[in-house]
């Protein structure tokens, strides 16, 4: 019930993001979701791709620092209050969301959000227990 995310360290200068995109394009890797967190000096690019192993390999070979993290992809009802429902659930249980971002594609009628937790196992358990659909890697890449 976990999805692998890769993250890449980028200096805040022009062309770095394009460089990553171009390396992945050349390797025929499709970016399915992406979020960039940045400070004035550097950024951390987080990616969900269709081939994590290959993406990690090509980026490392080009000298990037690459990390791998397990994240959770959960369906969120695509209507007012959909996200709140999940966040309040997590909040009540004291589970902290490190960061989150949206997946591009919908799963049937629902939006898909990517969540990064410190305590991922407990988070997955809680979501499933409360009837939230959590997508596996296979399901996610197939969207």
């Amino acid at each position: 019930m976990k999805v692998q995310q890769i993250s890449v360290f980028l200096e805040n200068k022009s062309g770095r993001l394009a460089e990553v995109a171009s390396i992945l394009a050349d390797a025929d890797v499709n970016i399915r979701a992406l979020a960039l967190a940045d400070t004035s000096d550097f950024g951390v690019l987080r990616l969900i791709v269709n081939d994590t192993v290959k993406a990690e390999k090509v980026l490392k070979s080009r000298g990037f620092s690459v990390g791998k993290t397990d994240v959770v992809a959960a369906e969120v009802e695509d209507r007012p209050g959909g996200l709140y429902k999940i966040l309040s659930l997590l909040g009540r249980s004291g589970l902290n969301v490190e960061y989150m971002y949206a997946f591009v594609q919908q799963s049937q009628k629902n939006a898909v959000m990517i969540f990064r937790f410190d305590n991922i196992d407990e988070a997955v358990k809680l979501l499933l227990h409360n009837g939230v659909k959590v997508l596996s890697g296979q399901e996610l890449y197939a969207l």
Partner: protein
Amino acid sequence: MIYDIRHETMPREDLESLQLRRLQASLERAYAMVPFYRKRFQEAGITPGQIRSLADLKNVPFTTKQDLRDNYPFGMFAVPMDMVVRIHASSGTTGKPTVVGYTARDIEMWAELMARSLAAGGANRGDIVHNAYGYGLFTGGLGAHYGAEKLGASVIPVSGGNTKRQVLIMKDFKPTILTCTPSYALHLAEAAEEMGVSFADLHFKAGIFGAEPWSENMREEIERKLHLSAVDIYGLSEVIGPGVSVECHQAKKGLHVFEDHFIPEIIDPNTGKSLPYGETGELVFTSITKEAFPVIRYRTRDITSLNCEPCICGRTLVRMNKVSGRTDDMLIIRGVNVFPSQIESVLMEIHEVEPHYQLVVDREDNLDVLTVKVEVGEKLFSDKVKKLQEIERRIQKHIKDYLGVSAKVKLVEPKSIQRSEGKAVRVIDNRKI
């Protein structure tokens, strides 16, 4: 192994009388043959004959790099050119290069000292020496080369550069001894890793690294990554090249100065006053056996101290501590003296940080700003921004706590800091003062 038992383990009393004899002869020769030295003696109102003890040496005037420049190129040579068989020069990054010459006997003596040095680091006849010091005007390459041959080892004169080929050679020729700069040693480790070659599978047992200052933490890093025993070797072309002093692999605690050829002194760089053993100051050398290019009280600008305690290796030669900096690369940041090697030590205290860093000094609004660039390697990287910022703050705090200077810390991408094949570019000073 001790290569020259007689000279390296000589009782101090015998060594000092040998030194005095050699010093007197060397001063006489320099006085007779080099107009510059004769003039300096005359200006000071002394003659070589007045040097009757080693303690009298402190009455002799110093020689500086500027003096060598003023006599560019061959003005300091003490023999006719037809006796000079080799010429080396130091890179002239801050002016004209410094040119040095050697007679056949100087070359022979230098080879002996380098054989001693390699042996002190753990090499023996029968070893294969991968010599990645640069060959050419720089004394490192040929110095180590002649020493390895003198020792009876097999030398691979691979020189600097072409790192990928070096890794292949290390795999196929199975060298057992590595000689290069410490920063290039780490560069080799990095290149090998990229090529899928592990140093654990190579055959190195020891490395003799020098030509740039490096910290104790960097030694640990090198020993861990290259799976060998690392010792520091010291030298400068003005004195002879590498092989002025070297650490023994038994103690790795200070570099034994080959005092039967060079007399070391520590002085206060501001007043020129001689300092006793144990005190830190500028290192000064007088050569006592060199023919072509004798140096008298040459100011190295290197900061260290001398240690006369007996060593477990059996050598009676005095030890100089690792050079902690130079009087001329000392950065003054808002009035605080900072040596790049100190910052390196601080960085290496933080285990996520690899020794790939660069100091950039700027002047913004008339204030010095020190920026420490640190590469984000696998160990340091995190997908969480706050974790990266926390490391930035930790480095900043360490530098402030240990050195009393505020620094900006900038995390940069791996391999974005210039790696030279020889010396690492550690400091960029953009201040116009």
